[in-house]
């Protein structure tokens, strides 16, 4: 009989200087933190013998987050408080774990399951306010899709389903923008892509952004119009890949 395995879900944040880490760098750093913590992680049977760990959707380089997640497969059901304490002691503060709990092993892959994100963006600059930004984003939404370049490649993302809602507020230092996005296997809308498109619209003509601070505030699973929190243990967990 195969040994029993356990799926530990860990919430962590990404802030400070480490906001500038790319997704692969975050993955490498956390895998090394897990090894340093001495957690009894499971190793895959594949060619490369890799640690069994999966991450929520990639966060853009430079973006902060208060709601990131990874699922780690363990070979022992370690007490969650102890697992968290060991992880905290072995992790860089700016990528610190905050909470952990066991979830059913058969659950769908984390990256696909967490398909809703909330973002908080602070924009500083000249020539725009909350109303004009609101209007610019509405123009992008109406256009139905955004064509953009990633590196040297032309990409496109539709806005009908990926851009769920947004709200803007004037602040003493500039404009704050709250965004809700939805991802699917067709793609995920990055705030920077949306803002680049919005600032190219007529309502924001002549506006200049001096800086933008992007923070992902949380991730959820969307099901039948409702949102499920990643640690929501009241959920039946019947959704499998």
């Amino acid at each position: 009989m195969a040994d029993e395995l356990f799926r530990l879900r860990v919430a962590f944040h990404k802030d400070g200087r480490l906001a500038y880490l790319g997704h692969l760098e975050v993955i490498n750093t956390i895998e090394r933190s897990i090894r340093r913590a001495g957690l009894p992680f499971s190793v895959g049977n594949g060619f490369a013998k890799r640690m069994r760990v999966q991450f929520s959707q990639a966060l853009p380089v430079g973006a902060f987050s208060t709601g990131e997640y990874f699922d780690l497969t363990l070979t022992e059901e370690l007490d969650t408080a102890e697992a968290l304490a060991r992880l905290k002691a072995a992790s860089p503060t700016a990528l610190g774990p905050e909470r952990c709990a066991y979830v059913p092993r058969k659950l769908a892959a984390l990256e696909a399951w967490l398909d809703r994100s909330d973002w908080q963006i602070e924009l500083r600059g000249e020539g725009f306010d909350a109303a004009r930004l609101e209007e610019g984003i509405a123009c992008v939404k109406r256009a139905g899709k955004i064509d953009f370049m990633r590196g040297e490649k032309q990409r496109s993302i539709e806005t009908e389903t990926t851009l769920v809602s947004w709200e803007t507020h004037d602040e003493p230092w500039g404009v704050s923008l709250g965004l809700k996005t939805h991802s699917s296997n067709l793609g995920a809308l990055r705030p920077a892509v949306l803002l680049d498109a919005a600032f190219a619209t007529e309502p924001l003509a002549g506006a200049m952004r001096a800086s933008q601070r992007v923070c992902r505030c949380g991730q959820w699973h969307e099901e039948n119009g409702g949102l499920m929190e990643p640690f929501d243990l009241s959920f039946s967990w019947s959704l499998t890949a």
Partner: protein
Amino acid sequence: MRLARQDRYAELEPLLASVEHPARYLNHEWGAVEEQDGPFHVCLIYADTYEVGQANLGLAILYDELNAAEGISCERCYLPWIDLSALMREKQVPLLSLESSSPVASFDVVGFTLAHEMIATNIIETLDLAGIPVRADERDEDDAIIFAGGPSAWNCEPLCAMFDAVLLGDGEGEIVDASHVVRDGRAAGKSRAQILLDLSRVQGVYVPSLYDLVVDESSTRWGYAVPKPGTDAPEVVYKRCIPDLSVTDPIPQKMVPYMGIVQDRLAIEILRGCARGCRFCQAGMTYRPVRERPIEQVVDAAEQGLETTGYDEVSLSSLSTTDHSQCALILRQLDERLEGKGVRVSIPSQRLDSFGVDMAAAVSGSRRGGLTFAPEAGTQRLRDVINKNVCSEDLENAARNAFELGWRRMKLYFMMGLPTETDDDVLAITAAARRVLEIGREVVGRGYKSGVSVSVSCSVFVPKCYTPFQWCGQLPIEEVRRRQDLMIRANRDRDIHISYHDAQVSVVEAALSKMGRAGFDLVYGAWKRGCRFDAWTDQFDYEHWLEAGRAMGIDLEELAAEPYDLDARLPWEHTSPGVSKDFLKREWHRAADGVTTDDCTRTSCTGCGVCPTLGVNNNLVGDRCGR
């Protein structure tokens, strides 16, 4: 002018959003020394990008040594990529250290690693970006004292105009001693000139400003250096040498980078030095004698280092890892201790025999990527000339053994332009690849599905100082190209892939290897024309180097191809790794006669002069059997 020591990260941070790989500039890695209270501050610089420099084991050793020393703090700095350096110049942000984000120009001592010749323009770029005068003789009294050292320090003359002191040999101990001299000198209110004089009294430290350049009939056109009258500087500065590797920290690499670096794994140095005596190899001469780390120390360090860093791979590093007398036992013990932890063990090079293949099999588990061997030359005649003590049978046996153990891809390293090379030797490179491929097909089978292939990588020979070939000229570039073409055209098999190094880079490398102090004008001229990151293929601009040479009346290609008289005084003879000139001459004559020389760790002393000169000996932990 010395800048104030203060955290200036706030000036750098806004620039990070618009550059490639901002993780290069973040600091705060796991294991980095955050407390930088000093009061004496040293900054060690590898003048290339973070991902290249952070992997350097030598720098990690020195970083640890300095931070462990009472009253000394040590930080790191790497050269920003061209996107960030352009922004920093535009916004007038000086080069900053990583740990405290203080200006490099605020440090007491700044140390550079001379990793290879092609880092030369990057050192100028680094000093310029830091706002430190590039030439040592233009620095103010309170400017940082600039150290340099590392594997390419043996002919540091073309760069020594930039350095206040060059540290030769093993850095352990030496860099702390030299830093103490600067600290104590500053505390006592000594002048910069007096501090440099004091530095010249530290064993292994060469102070270029205390030497005059003499060009006469006994020298090459680059002259030689003699101590200035009244300085009492040594006529020859010999390297510092640690007699016993076991007294050094086996895990100097405590820092875990966020971004992928060139060797992204834990490295344990299991031995230092190599006595095989390959006549083209500078490291084989300059790192002598051979010192092995005890087996228990290696195994314990690997296990402990993996636990504290979280790496999933450990590399047993050295110039020739499978030469360690206890290599098989080390790998067996590591295998037992690390079983089930998802950890890989790697060794950087394979010996060209069945033992080498067995060791590769021991570390690779069920994985069978490519396997690399370095016959270096195609014919037995030429392998004897270069003292590469392997024969065709070794290569064939190793290849057969590897194919039988499951490998399908073989990579072979060769050099082109070795002394006495003929067209037959060049054609033999392709023939050797064909023979290995044929063995693979015999063992595995023919046809596409067998997956058998051979890659040949052929570099261009660069004559290096302190090797028996130091007097040689480099093969002229047109001839290199003709022979490369000959080699390529001799190959008609699609399963043999041949690649070769850029001959133009090798010309610059050879020029910098052969020149004396006047070489600095060449380097500076190239930098002024825009050269930096010359080791990066997409950044290297040969035309700028040629122009810089022409501006000083030098044809770079002629210079690289120029042989030196065997009796001439050479530009680098006053900075010595201990190997005697007589030994190198003897080896040169034996090369010309095609006579090989044994490895002194397996037979008896071959008279290189290192042990009696430095007062050390080979220090092995067991018997080395076989060749």
